[in-house]
């Protein structure tokens, strides 16, 4: 059964673009063009995630969010906003939304974040001490990494990067997600900072192997997984 996503967005073109993309990604999308309809649909429940525009006619995004949380609904919510200042972002994050995405964004970024939220809201597995992907194995306690029989020496920063990737195995993680998730650094330098980290990590993991595990997803980010 495909998961249902509620999209509350008043801008027709943006809504069309997101809905089409999510549909292609295998989600079922319900759309609302204003806050009131959005709130009505949301309280109906059954959504895996709600994508909520901040500036809406009538009831604005933050009010919808407040009403949802007030009603005890804990469906994950991503706020979309043209207000990109850190204050707006922090205000958003402290008022009960789970993620905050500033316009313009790439669809890949939105998709990656939606998948992350849905997965996060699933019942948490027991605390893992070993992360695996194909024949790559990371022992979090001993802080050792092996690929098959080969031991891989990683610098602490590479270890943390790989850990983040493995915790989101088979998902696309974007550059900004990596900066935020690994370093808690909330600024995209715009240069190829992240790419250099990844290419070093790839060299240690994939070089000389028949199967590549660390993939670059064009226009989006990176993915670790056995599937090419």
């Amino acid at each position, binding site marked *: 059964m495909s998961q249902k996503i509620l999209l509350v967005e008043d801008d027709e073109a943006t809504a069309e*673009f997101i809905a089409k993309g999510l549909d292609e990604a295998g989600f079922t999308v319900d759309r609302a063009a204003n806050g009131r309809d959005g709130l009505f649909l949301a309280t109906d429940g059954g959504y895996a995630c709600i994508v909520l525009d901040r500036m809406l006619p009538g009831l604005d995004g933050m009010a919808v969010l407040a009403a949802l949380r007030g009603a005890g609904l804990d469906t994950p919510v991503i706020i979309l906003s043209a207000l990109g200042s*850190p204050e707006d972002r922090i205000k958003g994050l402290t008022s009960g939304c789970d993620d905050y995405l500033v316009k313009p964004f*790439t669809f890949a970024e939105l998709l990656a974040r939606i998948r992350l939220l849905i997965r996060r809201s699933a019942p948490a597995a027991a605390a893992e001490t070993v992360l695996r992907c194909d024949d790559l194995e990371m022992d979090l306690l001993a802080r050792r990494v092996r690929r098959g029989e080969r031991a891989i020496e990683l610098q602490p920063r590479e270890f943390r990067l790989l850990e983040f990737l493995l915790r989101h195995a088979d998902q696309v993680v974007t550059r900004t997600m990596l900066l935020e998730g690994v370093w808690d*650094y*909330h*600024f995209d330098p*715009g240069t190829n900072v992240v790419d250099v980290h990844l290419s070093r990590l790839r060299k240690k993991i994939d070089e000389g192997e028949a199967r590549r595990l660390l993939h670059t997803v064009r226009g989006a980010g990176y993915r670790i997984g056995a599937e090419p």
Partner: protein
Amino acid sequence: MKIWHSTTFRFAALVFLFQIVAAAVLLLGPALLLRSQNHADAVAVAETLRDDLLDAYADGGTSALAHAVDARASRRIERATVLLLARADGTPVTGDLDRMPPGLAPGAPYALLKFARPGHAAPEAMLLQAVRLRDGSLLVTGTVVESERQVLALLERNAMIALALSVVFAAFAAYVSTRLILNRLRASIATLRDVREGRLSRRVPADDTGDAFALLGSEVNQALDRMAGLNAELKIATDALAHDLKSPLTRMRAALDRAAQAVEDPQAQPYVDQALTESERLMAIVETALSITRAEAGMGRESFAESDLSELLETVAEIYSPLVEDQGRAVVVNAPAALHMRVHRQLLDQALGNLLDNTLKYGAGTITLTAVPDADGAAITVADEGPGIAPERREQALRRFSRLDEARGGWGAGLGLSLVQAVAHLHGGTVELRDAAPGLAVRIRLVEG
């Protein structure tokens, strides 16, 4: 600063001067008046006596004069007068002096002399005049003014002491009155300083005295209110601009995003990618320009949170280290174990990122990140060993949309250092570009507040 041009100093000097002059007139005036009055009285008594005697001489000649002098001297009619009749050579004939006082020229006006009378142990001050008579003998008349002199000297000494004290009082009065003015101005000055440092909501405390200082305070408050109003309008305008620009940009990005995925023609691919990159760059410029405007306007203080600056530097160094190493360079962090301070974490991240980007683009050698705590905050320095920036171009480097090297295109449209400066200002501090000899050191002062 020329202190004598300072109005405060002039005011203090004026108060001081008036105090001194008033005290001097009050204290020394009576003494001087008394002295001259006393002198005139003494001379008048002596002149009356002299004229009486000269009348006697004119009537009865030398013998009548001698008789009169003798009678007056022995009877001591005038207790404080002195008389002497002497021969032409100065030998006394009769009177209350036993010899001619030395230094008394005949015919001169009454002069003050110190002279001992017979039967008196100490010399006394007296006003004396000698007159040569027709037959050549000398008539000396005078008044003893010793006790008056002593009273006057005492009076004058007291006046001088009082005057010396009044210098102290005048200085105190000058100090207190300037203090009074400065204290009245202090509220306005402190408010303006707070506002300059970004605490925009500060106002001069209300004052119902209605004087010039209260007026100044209320004018300052009104000016600040007006400024706050303009700021609020600016915020609305920038938000609207962000919104207005971002919506079309969002659609453009979306279209390019889909185009990049749909395009099959390998020849078109690089152009679509380039368009995507440029749209990202455009967004970054709009975003950064807005961040600068907001930070310079002091917006964002509500997002300050306790952060560890040392950890922040370590993080930035770690994120950039692969890029730095690829250039064959190194990045070093010089910071205490922990340095906690309330800062705008995200803007500081961005400022440091900009500085690292700059040194990667224009600098050379080892990059040193330093954090040093100081009395009221901390200083973060990013230094390299590259060519640096010439002292005369440093101010230009901090200006918005200015690039020192136009030929080198960059990501940030010349906003990097302006953002760093705006972030420093938001934290009540400053940015300084220094010579790291060799290299450029950018020092960000952050003030805890």
